[in-house]
């Protein structure tokens, strides 16, 4: 039986090792490259979404089949979102936004299966995704506008003395974006999985108490069922929120002036 404590589902363990790099002659201080269960589910997410999109659009029917329709709906959904929040120039970043959305969505949904590992419940994953987004925003903004990108921090039409207060606030607001972007996804998925596991654990420990406990365990069971529904919604929603905030931030890189 699986352990009923709510944290053990986030354990990362090594599946196999690629070997150690950079070790000294004693074999110490090296950096071991390992393939973990987290990596396995990341690979699974990528393989799943890629193969689905490739196979479902293979027919390219004018009247789409059902599987092709799902891919087309996904495409249109993200394309409309990028167009409305970042304009037509933003469509240059459509592959990035779509990949982020698809990866987070599939990883969240895979995490909903019992015994599966929720990749996005690790803050290092969400932080890496958020830093990728902010890196693209800064790189593209500076490359496209040069110093004009700094206009992002200077709201137009304010007197000079106010600048000294407003500009640091704007800079801090910009710096806080990757943190809020990553914390939101991480927090939602982690909290959802812990709460779900806590209620599911109540079912197990209550029904071990005998007949009365089994009757009582109906309550946490109902709660666990309801929470599963809520978690599915949150999983889809957080992928969407991450994607739409990415396109809003990209809009800042494309049009830095307020």
């Amino acid at each position, binding site marked *: 039986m699986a352990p009923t404590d709510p944290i053990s589902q986030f354990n990362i363990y090594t599946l196999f090792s690629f070997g150690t790099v950079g070790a000294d002659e004693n074999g110490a201080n090296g950096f071991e490259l390992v393939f973990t269960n987290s990596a396995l589910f990341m690979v699974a997410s990528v393989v799943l979404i890629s193969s689905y999109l490739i196979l479902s659009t293979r027919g390219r029917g004018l009247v789409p089949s059902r599987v092709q329709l799902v891919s087309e709906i996904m495409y*249109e959904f993200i394309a409309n979102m990028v167009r409305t929040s970042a304009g037509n120039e933003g469509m240059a970043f459509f592959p990035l936004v779509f990949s982020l959305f698809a990866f987070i969505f599939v990883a969240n949904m895979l995490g909903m299966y019992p015994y599966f590992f929720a990749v996005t419940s690790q803050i290092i994953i969400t932080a890496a995704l958020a830093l990728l987004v902010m890196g693209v925003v800064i790189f593209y903004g500076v490359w496209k506008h040069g110093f004009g990108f700094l206009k992002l921090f200077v709201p137009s039409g304010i007197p000079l003395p106010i600048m000294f*207060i407003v500009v*640091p*606030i*704007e800079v*801090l*607001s910009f*710096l*806080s*974006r990757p*943190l*809020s972007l990553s*914390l*939101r996804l991480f*927090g*939602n998925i982690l909290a959802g999985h812990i709460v779900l596991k806590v209620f599911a654990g109540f079912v197990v420990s209550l029904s071990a108490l005998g007949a009365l406990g089994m009757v009582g365990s109906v309550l946490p069971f109902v709660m666990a069922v309801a929470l599963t529904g809520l978690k599915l*919604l*949150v999983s889809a*929603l*957080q992928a969407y*929120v991450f994607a*739409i905030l990415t396109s*809003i931030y990209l809009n800042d890189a494309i049009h830095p002036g307020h």
Partner: protein
Amino acid sequence: MTDFKHTKQSNSGSKRAETGELGEKIRQARSVRPGVAAAHAMRQNELTGFGRAFRMASEFVAAIIVATALGFALDAVFGTQPIFMIVLMLLGFAAGVLNITRAAAEMNAAAPKPDPDKLVPIDDDD
């Protein structure tokens, strides 16, 4: 979606009546499936109440954490504990409020105009 229908209609002029009939069927089928309309409404609203609350909270907290950490680091570099941390924490509060007002403005802009005839309290939290 709409341009697809255009090309379809202009390409096959002889089958226009059939397409129109099929279009009518699709419209009918859509109108009797409330789930589709609800999903569309959710997409328009962008977030559930929970999602909205979490977004606001994380925007606010993130600014304070970043500012305070930055202040702490600057203090450690210049040896001026705790001046930078205090000043930046206050600025972080301001940045957090700015983040929240921005997020609220985005949500307001994204939300559809309410129909005055259908203004009823929405209980989507519980």
